């Protein structure tokens, strides 16, 4: 009978293949998601350790290089001789037609390199260092990958520091959203009845008020004297106060459909408490949907923060975020003369795009049996 036993076991193996394994297989097949995932990881890594990756400090001013355009990275000098990675120093000249002060490449070379020493910084508040991943070999060299702003600060470095705020902001806000959405959605779906009605009406209510004006109003109500950190935290709470509805709906829907499943009823009958039933039996069975819902709401949070900060109602200087960096682009004239100030927009779009790709892959993967 041994061959039959083996065959019988074989019959079962397809159903036994773990859910998480199936999800990973399915996720791997989503090419865009597989591209997006490493990019997201890289972006978070770079912005988290932005002191190391940024060539300059976000607040150091290069006084002679206000509104300086980006310098192109080159390998050969003006005569075509190979000199290694370098940029040419910008020099200020008058435009012969408009008499406006503009920058042009001079012959002077600023050599670039990896793991160079620059201005000292305190790494994540832990220890002092001056080691940088990439930058001018000579300390304080005028290297502006993405140009400078009107105060002569290196935009690329500022974008990396702004990314730290904008990207972490999304995570902090999502954490609050997760907490509120899971709690209220869980209560709504599990208890049902009156609690469910109230929470559902609350969701209807919040969803009927246009989001950005509501964010703006709540953000504007924050005291002007509040510290940067306080503002950062409160802004993320405001975002989650409005953003929890989607997650709560997912959680409620899933709980409603699972509540009647045999394994839940069995747990209830054997005397498990409500909390235990939710935590041990319900949550694990729809964790994947929660992850999908959360990933899907990260782009919205990033866009919301940047829009509000851009309008001057969110995070404010001296806090650097991608939104506050874009504040400089509000007039057509500024845009026309310093188009490089739109670089933060590129980072916003790429980030949101990558999160959307990843979210899409996760959505496919969440239903591995489909």
């Amino acid at each position: 009978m041994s061959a039959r036993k083996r065959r019988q076991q074989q019959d079962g193996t397809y159903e036994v293949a773990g859910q998480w394994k199936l999800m990973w297989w399915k996720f791997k097949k989503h090419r865009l998601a597989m591209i997006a995932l490493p990019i997201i990881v890289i972006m978070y890594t770079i912005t988290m350790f932005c002191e190391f990756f940024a060539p300059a400090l976000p607040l150091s001013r290069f006084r002679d290089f206000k509104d300086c355009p980006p310098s192109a990275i080159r390998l050969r000098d003006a005569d075509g001789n190979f000199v290694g990675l370098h940029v040419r120093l910008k020099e200020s000249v008058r435009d012969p037609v408009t008499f406006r002060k503009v920058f042009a490449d001079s012959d002077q070379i600023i050599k670039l390199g990896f793991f160079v020493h620059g201005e000292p910084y305190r790494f994540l508040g832990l220890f002092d260092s001056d080691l940088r991943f990439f930058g001018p070999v000579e300390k304080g060299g005028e290297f502006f990958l993405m140009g400078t702003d009107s105060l002569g600060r290196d935009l690329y470095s500022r974008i990396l520091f702004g990314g730290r705020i904008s990207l972490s902001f999304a995570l902090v806000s999502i954490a609050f959203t997760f907490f509120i959405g899971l709690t209220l959605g869980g209560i709504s779906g599990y208890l049902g009845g009156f609690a469910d009605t109230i929470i559902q009406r609350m969701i209807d209510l919040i969803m009927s008020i246009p989001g950005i004006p509501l964010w703006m109003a709540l953000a504007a109500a924050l005291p002007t004297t509040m510290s940067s950190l306080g503002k950062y935290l409160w802004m993320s709470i405001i975002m989650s106060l409005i953003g929890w509805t989607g997650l709560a709906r997912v959680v409620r829907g899933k709980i409603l459909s699972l509540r009647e499943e045999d394994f839940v009823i069995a747990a209830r009958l054997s005397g498990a408490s409500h909390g235990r039933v939710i935590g041990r039996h319900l949550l694990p069975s729809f964790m994947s949907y929660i992850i999908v819902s959360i990933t899907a709401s990260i782009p919205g949070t990033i866009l919301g923060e940047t829009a509000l900060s851009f309008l001057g109602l969110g995070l404010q200087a001296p806090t650097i975020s991608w939104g506050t960096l874009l504040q400089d682009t509000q007039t057509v004239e500024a845009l026309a003369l310093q188009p490089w100030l739109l670089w933060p927009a590129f980072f916003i779009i790429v980030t949101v795009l990558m999160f959307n790709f990843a979210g899409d892959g996760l959505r496919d993967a969440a239903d591995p049996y489909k």
Partner: protein
Amino acid sequence: MSIEQDVILRLNDVKVHFKMDEGLLKAVDGVSFEIKKGKTLGIVGESGCGKSVTSNAIFNILPKYGLLGGEILLYEKDRKRLERPIDIVKLNPTGPEIRSIRGGNIAMIFQEPMKAFSPIHTVGNQIIEAIQLHVEPDAKKARDIAISMLRSVGIANPEQRVDEYPHQLSGGMRQRAMIAMALSCNPSILIADEPTTALDVTVQAQVLELINNLKRDFGTSIIFITHDLGVIAEMSDDVAVMYLGKIMEYCTVDELFYRPLHPYTQALLKSIPTPGKTRKGRFESIAGTVPYPMNLPEGCGFFSRCDYAAEGVCDQSGTDMVEAYPGHFVRCTRHEVLDAPGQGGNA
């Protein structure tokens, strides 16, 4: 089995394979049978055995990733345009020939009438549409046909019902309307895919009686798909037992119940609960689960669940269909051994 002229539909080695990401899923793997005029063929099997896919294959309605092979020959005489017999497999699945066959020559009744009707169109609208396609293009006349059809399937007050939406009708009523739609174009073959599974027992009996009456009145041939052997006994002339996309046993209904040859058929028959016959008050069930029909190993598909399986024989190369008795086909290498007195059987 019978005189050749009587056969109106013949399936020869029909295969439906689905190209899935994980591999090739052989939903229907070499099915052959024939249907005679005015007769009922029952197809029986557990869920997932390929019986519904077979019926969709007859309509040449398959998803894009489905591959259809073999021959499905339609020997219909009274419609002019086409050469007889037509091989449905070779027709363009969206072309005019197949569309004239669908609903015109072959019609279908589905398992869940609620889902099979569009919820936002009236029942009448959906029946009239079929009539206009195949029988009567004039809207007014088509409506009259629809109303008389609804009356003939036993719907009271059809003039009013014709303008109602599916969800306004009861379950049994919806299935009657479905039958009316299927028969409205006077097809010669009716495929009924588990038409009573979603209905109450009393309504089930009524619908089955209705189908039998219609078969008598219109002379329609019926392919009756079900997992319920009791219904098969009541409805069919011939029976095909399917397992994992293959026909395991194919014979007349009497042969099947009195002389089942395949261990799977025997097990199916044993699992019918009979009052007073159940041992120790337990239902008999077939041990194990149906294997996932993908990348199947060699040998008989029922090997892993068969009580009489012989290692080295049944798990080796494929098992062929043999005619054990005249008109009684079985796909089992050991049927002669098992057929001997005292070995298995319906004891």
